[in-house]
């Protein structure tokens, strides 16, 4: 960069300050600007199907006056209008029962930038992503690979002046073997880690090949000892984590609405944490939307509900402390993590003994949010394991998993020692977690689809 040249971060900081100053002086106010660029390549059945590039500028304004709360969002360059519209909107609301003053800022600025990602995105270099998905290497491959660069600036009337610059590299692939027997896996990182991506793609290929070699056996309906891959665990435990957001309790979407911190809600083998400080994952941030310092915090620790996840608003309403999970109106998730156990990757079948290895799932729906009753369609390889050995396989679409998420987490028995970085269509937040073994329970049934 030439001397004197204004960086993207400096440009956004200046814009945020200008808009903050244009907002009414008698209001609490915060301005967040996110500038982002990304490139993505999608593949389908052994061919690239589209190459995409995105450039966005997102401006969000928080304004609170007389106990009224407004959040306005602009994906447009018309920043001149933003302050005027935001002020007008807040005046047209009633006092919010959620209102709490913006807290003292305690967060700090930070970076998790991989220059290689930044360069590839700036140059629109999709060739590297295309070669990663090469069908000559992987066969009948579908999926996507994406690189992104984001700069976030938060400026607020509580004195917060914070920036976060980060990159991300994520994707997922599905590889088909014979007769729609497939494997699927994902990866996510703040760095361009080709080994991580290749390991994920290789895992998808190995699952497809293993399932193709094994004889087909569609398991009888019933309860089984289950080995959940990180893809499946990530999907189901993300719903559990969402249910631990105080906003979910408030809106009538939480299976833990009758629980309180200190309650045992899961087995002692499960520790589920919010991990915004993990800079290997792109949910990384050292401040939340209120400018509060984020922290890694176990929401469920060895099976015990330690805390719901709060911003200052839900914390005030529920008599708790903020956990640094602010969204401006309701709390939100950053990264998630399940603590690993001691089963080595080579011994997961042996640890399962007799049961089913569920490698992926899809289309999870809650029958009853308040009781955590759900069903989900299995997808890709479902491997029958007997005496610690894989003996048969069926494509997951022939099976469904149904039951209670409360039963599932209380029956977690053990976890693998190796964590995987997972994010894909059905796992929305970056999630680091291992394989998980769930004991056979009448509350969790495998059904034929």
């Amino acid at each position, binding site marked *: 960069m030439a001397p004197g040249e204004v960086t993207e971060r400096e440009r956004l900081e200046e814009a945020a300050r200008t808009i903050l100053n244009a907002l009414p002086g008698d209001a609490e106010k915060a301005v967040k600007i996110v500038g982002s660029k990304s*490139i993505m*390549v999608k*593949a*389908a059945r*052994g061919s*690239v*199907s*589209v*190459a*995409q*590039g*995105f*450039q*966005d500028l997102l401006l969000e304004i928080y304004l609170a006056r007389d106990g009224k*709360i*407004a*959040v*306005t*969002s602009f*994906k*447009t*360059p018309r920043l001149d209008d933003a302050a005027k*519209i*935001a002020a*007008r*909107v807040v005046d*047209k*609301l*009633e006092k*919010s*029962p959620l209102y709490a003053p913006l807290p003292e800022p305690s967060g700090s600025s930070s970076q998790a930038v991989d220059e290689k990602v930044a360069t590839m995105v700036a140059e*629109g*270099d*999709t060739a590297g992503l*295309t070669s990663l998905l090469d069908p000559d290497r992987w066969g009948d491959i*579908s999926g996507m690979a994406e690189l992104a660069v984001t700069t976030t600036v938060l400026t607020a009337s509580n004195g917060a002046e914070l920036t976060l610059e980060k990159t991300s590299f994520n994707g997922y*692939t*599905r590889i088909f073997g014979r007769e*729609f027997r497939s494997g699927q896996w994902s990866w996510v990182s703040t760095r361009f880690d080709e080994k991580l991506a290749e390991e994920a793609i290789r895992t998808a290929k190995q699952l497809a090949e293993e399932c193709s070699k094994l004889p087909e056996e569609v398991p009888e309906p019933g309860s089984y000892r289950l080995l959940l891959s990180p893809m499946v665990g990530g999907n189901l435990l993300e719903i559990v984590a969402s249910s631990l957001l105080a906003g979910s309790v408030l*809106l*009538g*979407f939480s299976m833990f*609405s009758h629980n309180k911190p200190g309650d045992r809600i899961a087995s002692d083998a499960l520790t589920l944490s919010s991990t915004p400080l993990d800079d290997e994952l792109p949910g990384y941030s050292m401040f939340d939307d209120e400018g509060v310092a984020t922290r890694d915090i176990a929401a469920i620790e060895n099976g015990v509900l330690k805390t719901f996840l709060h911003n200052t608003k839900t914390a005030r309403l529920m008599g708790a402390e903020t956990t640094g999970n602010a969204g401006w*109106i309701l709390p939100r998730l950053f990264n998630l993590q399940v603590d690993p156990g001691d089963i080595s990757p080579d011994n997961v079948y042996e640890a399962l003994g007799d049961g089913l290895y569920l490698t992926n799932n*899809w*289309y999870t729906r809650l*029958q*009853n*949010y*308040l009781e955590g*009753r*759900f*069903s989900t*369609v299995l*997808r890709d390889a479902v491997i029958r394991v007997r005496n610690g050995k894989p003996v048969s396989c069926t494509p997951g*679409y022939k099976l*469904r998993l*149904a039951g209670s998420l409360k039963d599932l987490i209380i029956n977690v028995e053990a976890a693998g020692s190796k964590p995987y970085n997972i994010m894909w*269509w059905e796992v929305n937040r970056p999630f680091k977690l291992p394989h998980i073994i769930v004991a056979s329970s009448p509350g969790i049934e495998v059904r034929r*689809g």
Partner: protein
Amino acid sequence: MKSGENSRYDFYPPDPVLLEKLVEKALDKGASYAEARFHARLGDSVLVVNDRVVGGGFEIEEGVAFRVIVDGALGFASTSLLSEESLDSVVDHAVSIARSSSRGFRKKVGMSEERLGQAQYSLKVKKDFRNLELEDKASIVLEYSKSLESKSVDLKAKTFSYSDVLEAKLIITSDGGNIESIIPRVSIFYNIAAEHGDRRANKWGHLAGSGGLELVGELGLESMLKDDVNSLEVNLVKAEPSPKGVMDVIISPEIVGLALHESIGHPSEADRVMGREAAQAGLSYRMWLDGRIGSSKVTVADDPTVPGSYGFYLYDDEAVPARERILINKGELAELLHSRTTAYSFGVQSNGAARAMNYRSEPIVRMSNTYLKPGDMRFEELLEDVKEGIYMKSYMEWNIDEFRLVARYVGLEAYLIKNGRIVKPVRDTVLEIPTESFYSKIDGVGKDLRFYAGICGKGEPPQPLPVWMGGPHVRVRDVRVG
């Protein structure tokens, strides 16, 4: 292209001449096809929880999407920065990423030759939401929230999310398409959580359509809410465990619409049939299945031109004129839903099903308003010769496998039928049913067509899009209830 009367709803499209020049520039740089789309979405939102306004806001997103085909490779680039310089660079970006990934395109992309539209249209409304302030919109929702009550269950949480959106597009294609459109939409999503003793359940609902605030009354929010509270009361207080076994099932329009969307609409998307959604939204039984799938009473349409519908449009996002698509004709599988790229691959004409969520989205094959054509039977006639069966009136859970072969629907409000009469409420009725069984066993179709709003998911980045789903009551013979 006019902006709104209220400054919040103004949008600022780039000069169409500039977009035309950019399209020309892409051709000069070697593209065989180019398409520019200005796409704006602007609207208010309010969140009401337990009869209190928790917060509100306004959202604007506007930007330009640019799509090209270079050497058989499809490139897409978008930006929310609308300066001439930014737009110029987005063309370069689209062309360069298409070119740099072209080696990976084993299946070359092309566009079907079509009669493209050159038109401007704007949906007229009776009660324009642009003329109301946020407090007026909040008061509408508050009134409904406060009216919710139950004598038999505790309503523990009542959540209402109101939003409106003005969606404006200007689409220019290198082969003559030129469409300007403005469509307003209103949406109210709600969730009611209830308890009775140690039992708990929730019911969420969605009222939405294209038009103004008149939709709230016309689509019957008041009766929807009453029905849903009644469903919770029936389930939590009165219902007994559902019987299991093979029996007849009468299914309400709410569940029929959902079933059609999932098991007929999605598998009829040509891009799924080609495998383009193989790692995302999945595949389709129409990869191998053709011919008869249902009884002669089953005719299923997808029609974007239904007035007031949530999935309304007159031209798709590739400038192809919209029309009704018949997906099942008297039990026979019929048309697939096509964009120009899938139509090119299949060697047919597009039927105008390409939709994009916003300026960040490429147009892909999507449903609009999918419904079962009504028959001529009254509800009582459907009931009268059922010896033993279930009437499923509302649902709380559903899913379906990626090929769309077997679906699951779990009833919230359901009743046992004996000898042609509804005798008592039952709960947790589970219908897990193969698609072919479902449609081939329909022997009675009501005349009471009704639509329900939904948000349909697909694509990467994901593109949630507004749709309607609907149908009349139907009777399905001899199916397994679990």
